[in-house]
């Protein structure tokens, strides 16, 4: 492919130019890598008939909507395929199975492509474990592909700036640098092929070493703890679908820890109160996490004191357990009495004892987990050790968690001690070449002094997608392709996955595997390597593997219980530490995770599920501390830990215990791209390194007032009155079993429910679309929100617009803090234990929609299939409908957000089936009208009726908890009809007689 003279023509060529097309085909064919079924993916559409929709619908929509259709339409050309791939019908989407694997998780996905362009990432429905579960972050990776700030070609530093060079030259430079003493720094890695290749690369010479680290402490903490407890280098598979009681100690298993989508799927499969199939989730944590907010019981701890709690519980549970006779264990835990733990954690003795009592009841069918940055109190994996201890005591090991088919069995983690040694070696010039593979140690390992050391290295080779803080300091950048452009593989949970490319590389990049292989210089291609690796796992043949995307590498089994090595507890303090002062925990945010994807504006604007903050991080402080110090939202404070201090705004977060403060990692990167750089502050710089290890939880800090305050771009500022107004309804399982109508106490029924409307209702046949959302299942993870953005071309508006309240999300997740009753509320004035409720709110498609009534031009009305439609091209923008919407789900385009605002190639991420809205029109949730239309049309062509569950909205499809059900209410057998008639079902503001098409199910908490 010729180097582009001009970026615009270049990207146009990718989809349009037959010249480039055939050239590419030839290249692939010569390489002999492409089986027929995959080749068609690469046959990108030169059919301009479609490209018209893609280009013009996206780029020209607002033009024509601005009334230019009065004039003669511009001449459009149709350039058809020269040879159309067999089975390819222009205009019809194709799906390919692939896998998204990064340092901390593996996600089987389906890629929706149109005319050869990936458009959307969806969960893999056929995966027996995931069953379509996906995280918002994975959905957002489609924008990673089209990120204009990706490194587009190899770069070499000359002076202070980077200059593009040819791949051959880049590889040559790298290979010669590798001849010096080298350290290869990377993160945990699920890919057998990559791990083997890196090992070959490192072992090829004696002066090369490998460092594997995990700054989010999710896999890292687990690996260290497993090693200490059992001597193995694997992270077990957790089976939350078999556990009746889940105790999470700082592990945000529903939000960010390891595989939240899978865990949410498993967790929600046991949240079915009607069938009595309810598990119990108990969370003990310092910061309010997604998991904590979904807990049946949540214990707010002093930051970093979860180890004390775990040991205290172990102390109480030890008698009569398998480890009862183990003196080492008894010695480690004996000082952790209930009263001592109480002093350490802030909980009452009664709470601790009753928790232990309850755990006792669930022996062998409970699961204790711990991990993540907010659990890493010593950098040696103690949190995993204590979780293992409790699981052993409770007899869970081998029952609800499995090491036989591990979640992670890739590259082993390097201890902080070794990392420190490597850093000092670099600083001392003993290591001349540093290879940084898809990591950002300059940013993440600031506490260990990595940046200062790196300046001493002669050669720094960076493999990655963006010029991040580490790349900025490197001498050579080898751009890595997106996973949708690469061959890759992964192994996890007893499955082997193959990642296949869905598009040719947009830029002059190479897959990570290809780069590694070229550094090895043995001429093997990534495709060939993956094929040969796959033969170890795959029996069904390569094409079948590609079609499915994964294969079972070994039968998922729970394995036998392992023997806990009590020596792992040797590092435990003899006495629990006392609470006092401010203790800081760092945590991964749902939106940004480790921060590697921070350059995607959609991620930045995704409201945090708990705080609803966008565009930046903050110091979460407790209500008590805020009150004591007079801190208001956004007050700037100076946080000092071990002499290093940063300034950040305060966010008053209910659910924190006095003295606990928390801050999200992933923000405050100095280099990344036009979007992601310099947003928020780098929380890693507060990590403690005093002990020699990097510690991210329970860090003693001082917090002082700083000058001024910052504007907090939250999308939700109020949470009061939700219960009083009957908006979120909840009850306990016990109540619900006594009274199926429990939870509806605040329902307003005017005229005793006998009020009749003035008019007879219209009939909608044969379809009337309805939706049901189960608040018991919804965890607030926000995957639906991201999916909605991706499906419906919703613009990101930026921090300044969020600040004035103009976010465009069609679907938002309302988060309310509430108490069951007044007494509870009075008993907790500092809001340490509030109930947290999530409520996804999108257009309710009311049958008597107030918005329809008021539009003077009839741009919004009710369709024959019961949808409240919005014709953008008729809208003149009076905003009356938005005012009159009691749910405030209509969004107005205050500015032009698309035309002229997209940077090439961002436009390719737009869905060609959805009109891009111009300035001055209202938009809102359409119940994924384009999906309904597509299925209805195909049903019409086939001459049949739609079946239940055939249409899935984007939010429903993304929901890992299966909380959203969509269907035809006219079909008496449809799931949505049955759910609507359930005793738990209610509609928002039913008293206003707007008759919403969305119904919610009362949230049931399984309390005690």
């Amino acid at each position, binding site marked *: 492919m010729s180097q582009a003279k001009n970026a615009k023509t270049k990207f146009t060529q990718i989809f349009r130019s037959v010249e480039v097309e055939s050239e590419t085909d030839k290249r692939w064919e010569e390489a002999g890598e492409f089986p027929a079924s995959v080749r068609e993916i690469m046959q990108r559409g030169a059919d301009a008939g479609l490209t018209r929709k893609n280009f013009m619908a996206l780029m020209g929509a607002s033009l024509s909507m*601005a*009334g230019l259709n009065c004039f003669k339409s511009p001449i459009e050309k149709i350039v058809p395929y020269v040879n159309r791939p067999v089975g390819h019908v222009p205009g019809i989407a194709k799906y390919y199975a692939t896998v998204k694997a990064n340092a901390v998780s593996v996600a089987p996905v389906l890629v929706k492509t149109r005319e050869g362009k990936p458009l959307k990432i969806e969960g893999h429905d056929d995966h027996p474990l995931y069953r379509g579960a996906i995280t918002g972050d994975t959905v957002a990776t489609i924008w990673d592909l089209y990120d204009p700030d990706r490194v587009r070609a190899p770069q070499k530093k000359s002076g202070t700036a980077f200059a593009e060079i040819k791949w051959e030259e880049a590889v040559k430079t790298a290979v010669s640098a590798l001849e010096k003493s080298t350290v290869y720094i990377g993160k945990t890695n699920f890919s057998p092929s990559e791990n083997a290749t890196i090992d070959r690369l490192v072992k090829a010479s004696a002066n090369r070493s490998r460092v594997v680290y995990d700054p989010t402490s999710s896999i890292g903490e687990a690996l260290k703890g497993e090693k200490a407890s059992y001597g193995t280098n694997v992270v077990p598979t957790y089976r939350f679908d078999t556990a009746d009681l889940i105790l999470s100690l700082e592990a945000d298993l529903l939000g960010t820890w390891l595989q939240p989508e899978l865990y949410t799927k498993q967790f929600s499969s046991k949240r079915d109160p009607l069938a009595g199939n309810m598990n119990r989730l108990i969370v003990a944590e310092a910061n309010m996490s997604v998991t904590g907010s979904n807990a049946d019981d949540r214990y707010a701890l002093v930051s970093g004191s979860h180890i004390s709690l775990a040991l205290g519980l172990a102390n109480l549970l030890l008698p009569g357990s398998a480890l009862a006779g183990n003196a080492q264990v008894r010695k480690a835990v004996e000082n952790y009495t209930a009263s001592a733990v109480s002093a350490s954690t802030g909980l009452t003795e009664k709470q601790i004892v009753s928790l232990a009592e309850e755990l006792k009841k669930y022996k062998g069918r409970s699961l204790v987990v711990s991990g993540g940055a907010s659990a890493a109190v010593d950098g040696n994996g103690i949190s995993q050790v204590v979780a293992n201890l409790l699981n052993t005591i409770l007899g869970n090991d081998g029952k609800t968690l499995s090491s036989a088919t591990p979640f992670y069995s890739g590259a082993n983690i390097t201890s902080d001690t070794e990392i420190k040694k490597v850093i000092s070696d670099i600083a001392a010039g003993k290591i001349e070449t540093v290879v940084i593979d898809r990591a950002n140690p300059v940013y993440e390992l600031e506490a260990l002094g990595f940046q200062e050391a790196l300046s001493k290295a002669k050669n720094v080779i960076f493999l990655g997608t963006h010029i991040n803080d580490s790349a900025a300091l490197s001498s050579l950048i080898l751009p890595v392709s997106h996973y949708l452009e690469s061959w890759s593989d992964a192994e996890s949970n007893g499955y082997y996955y193959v990642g296949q490319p869905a598009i040719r590389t947009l830029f002059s990049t190479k897959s990570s595997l290809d780069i590694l292989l070229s550094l090895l210089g043995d001429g093997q291609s990534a495709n060939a390597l993956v094929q040969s690796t796959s033969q170890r796992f795959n029996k069904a043949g390569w094409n079948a593997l590609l079609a499915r995307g994964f294969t079972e590498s070994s039968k998922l089994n729970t394995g036998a219980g392992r023997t806990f090595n009590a020596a792992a507890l040797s590092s435990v303090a003899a006495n629990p530490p006392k609470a006092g002062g401010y203790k800081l925990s760092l945590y991964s945010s749902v939106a940004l995770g480790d921060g590697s994807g921070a350059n995607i504006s959609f991620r930045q604007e995704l409201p945090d599920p708990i705080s609803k903050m966008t565009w930046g991080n903050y110091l979460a402080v407790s209500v008590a501390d805020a009150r004591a110090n007079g801190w208001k939202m956004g007050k700037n404070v100076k946080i000092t830990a071990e002499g290093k201090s940063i300034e950040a705004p305060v966010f008053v977060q209910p659910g924190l215990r006095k003295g606990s403060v928390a801050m999200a990692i992933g923000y405050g990167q100095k280099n990344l791209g036009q979007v992601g750089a310099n947003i928020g502050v780098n929380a890693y710089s507060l990590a403690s390194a005093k002990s020699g290890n990097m510690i991210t939880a329970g860090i003693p800090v001082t917090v002082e007032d700083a000058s001024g305050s910052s504007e907090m771009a939250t999308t*939700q*500022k*109020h*949470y*009061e*009155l*939700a219960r*009083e*107004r009957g*908006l979120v309804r909840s009850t306990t399982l016990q109540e619900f079993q006594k009274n199926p109508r429990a939870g509806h106490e605040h329902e*307003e029924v005017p005229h005793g429910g006998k009020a009749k409307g003035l008019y007879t209702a219209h009939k909608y046949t044969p379809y009337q679309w309805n939706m049901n959302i189960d608040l018991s299942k919804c965890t607030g993870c926000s995957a639906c929100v991201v999916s909605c953005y991706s499906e419906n071309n919703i613009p990101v508006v930026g921090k300044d*617009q969020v600040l*004035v*309240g*103009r*976010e465009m999300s069609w679907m*938002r997740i*309302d*988060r*309310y803090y509430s108490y069951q009753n007044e007494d509870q509320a009075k008993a907790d004035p500092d809001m340490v234990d509030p109930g947290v409720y999530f*409520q996804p*709110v999108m257009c309710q498609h009311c049958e008597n929609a*107030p918005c*329809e*009534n*008021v*539009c*003077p*031009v*009839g741009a919004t*009305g009710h369709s024959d299939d019961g949808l409240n439609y919005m014709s953008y091209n*008729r*809208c*003149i*923008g*009076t*905003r*009356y409908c*938005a*005012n*009159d919407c*009691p*749910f*405030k789900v209509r*969004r*107005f*385009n*205050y*500015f*032009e957000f698309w035309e002229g605002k997209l940077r090439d190639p961002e436009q390719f991420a737009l869905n060609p089936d959805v009109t891009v809205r*111009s*300035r*001055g*029109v209202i938009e809102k949730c359409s119940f994924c009208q384009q999906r309904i239309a597509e299925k209805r049309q195909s049903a019409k062509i086939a001459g049949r009726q739609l079946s239940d569950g055939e249409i899935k909205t984007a939010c429903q499809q993304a929901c890992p908890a299966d909380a959203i059900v969509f269907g035809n209410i006219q079909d008496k057998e449809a799931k949505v009809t049955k759910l609507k008639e359930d005793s738990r079902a209610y509609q*928002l*503001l039913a008293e*206003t007689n*707007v008759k919403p098409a969305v119904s919610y199910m009362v949230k049931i908490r399984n309390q005690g």
Partner: protein
Amino acid sequence: MSLESVKNPFHIGKTFKQIDDDIMRPMETFPSKTWWIAFLIAASLLAMFAGILIYSFVKGLGIFGLNNPVGWGLYIVNFVFWVGIGHAGTLISAILFLFRQRWRTSINRAAEAMTIFAVMVAAIFPLIHVGRPWFVFWVFPYPNERGPLWVNWRSPLLWDVFAISTYFIISLQFWYMGLVPDFANMRDRQERFKARSKIGELLLTVKKITLRVISLGWVGSAKTWHHYEKMVLILSALATPLVLSVHTIVSFDFATSIIPGWHATIFPPYFVAGAIYSGFAMVLTLMIIMRRTFKLEDYITMKHLENIGLVILVTGMMVSYAYTVEFVIAAYSANKVEQYVFMNRLAGPYAWAFWTMFACNVVSPHFMWFKKLRNNLTVLFIISIVVNIGMWFERFVIVVTSLHRDYLPSSWDMYVPTIYDWGMMLGSFGVFFTFFLLFVRTLPVIAIAEVKADEANDSLHAAH
């Protein structure tokens, strides 16, 4: 021709010639320095209005402080405010005519002009506050090539379109027809003017031609007067329900919605009372200035101003009553959302606006109980201004505080007007006063023929 003094307190007792000269003096003399200063200020505000308008067309409505819960802000506040102002003119002309209130004759012309200009200013706002103003003609149900694509007849905004355009057209016709005899009078006075230069001659000719055209060949025939008088009566009879309907329909914009604080059956009378209240206050402001600057004290007497003061007192109490009833309804409704909205008005983040409104609208008119204060120009002037401020805040309270906290607390947010919002508000005063200042210099500010008719009537009674 002179008349003996009669008992009617509004009797002027001047010759018709004198009346002509008095009322037409502003049109026939070169404008004073004060006028020029006022005009320059108003015109520059108008220019600012136009500038912001163009900027908003180029950039988008995002330059204003609107956001998701508060989709209507100062634009609609200004719209309702100006429509309200626009009620007094027709009310004075029509209703007072039907009730045979003699004191209307001295003020109806200026009040009607005020109506026309206020409605013009008001009508600009809903047109420019839409997202795509270049498509605003879609609100008219005209046949089009898109097939059967019509409007939504159920929308109160569409009713607004019909109501305000009808109101504007009928008011304009009423005003213009009232001016025709005076135009004829002006036409017939032109001979006394001589041009001193070529340009002057040209201008004079243009003026003469214009006057001839706009006076429609009026010759003062009794047969014409016969129909004309009937027309005035009928237009008054039509305009009276029209004027009530217009603000009723404006109130429907709010009352037919579902938003607590808007959805109230009391809105139509409440809005009409408020409109009369603010309209009369504006008339008072304008009359006090006008009679002073143009020395029309003989025509617009203290008695006139006192009567306006009484109207303000009465409508002020009606408005106060409406405020009270709103709270009573909310308290009685057992509707928590409704109750919250009213508590929020009293003590929420926009309580300052509510209490400003309260002080201006509920407290200040009670000074009008005292005859001494009613006859004090300074007091009247201050109260007229204060009432208008209060009525502006009333609309602010209704529009903004209801929207910013409605049903779902999750969507609650604040509305902070930007500098452009305030600019548009100030600019709208500029537009209004530019027109009004031009009016006072180009058209007779008092309906001469009607004043004469009343004077003639007096003479007939005196003769009996």
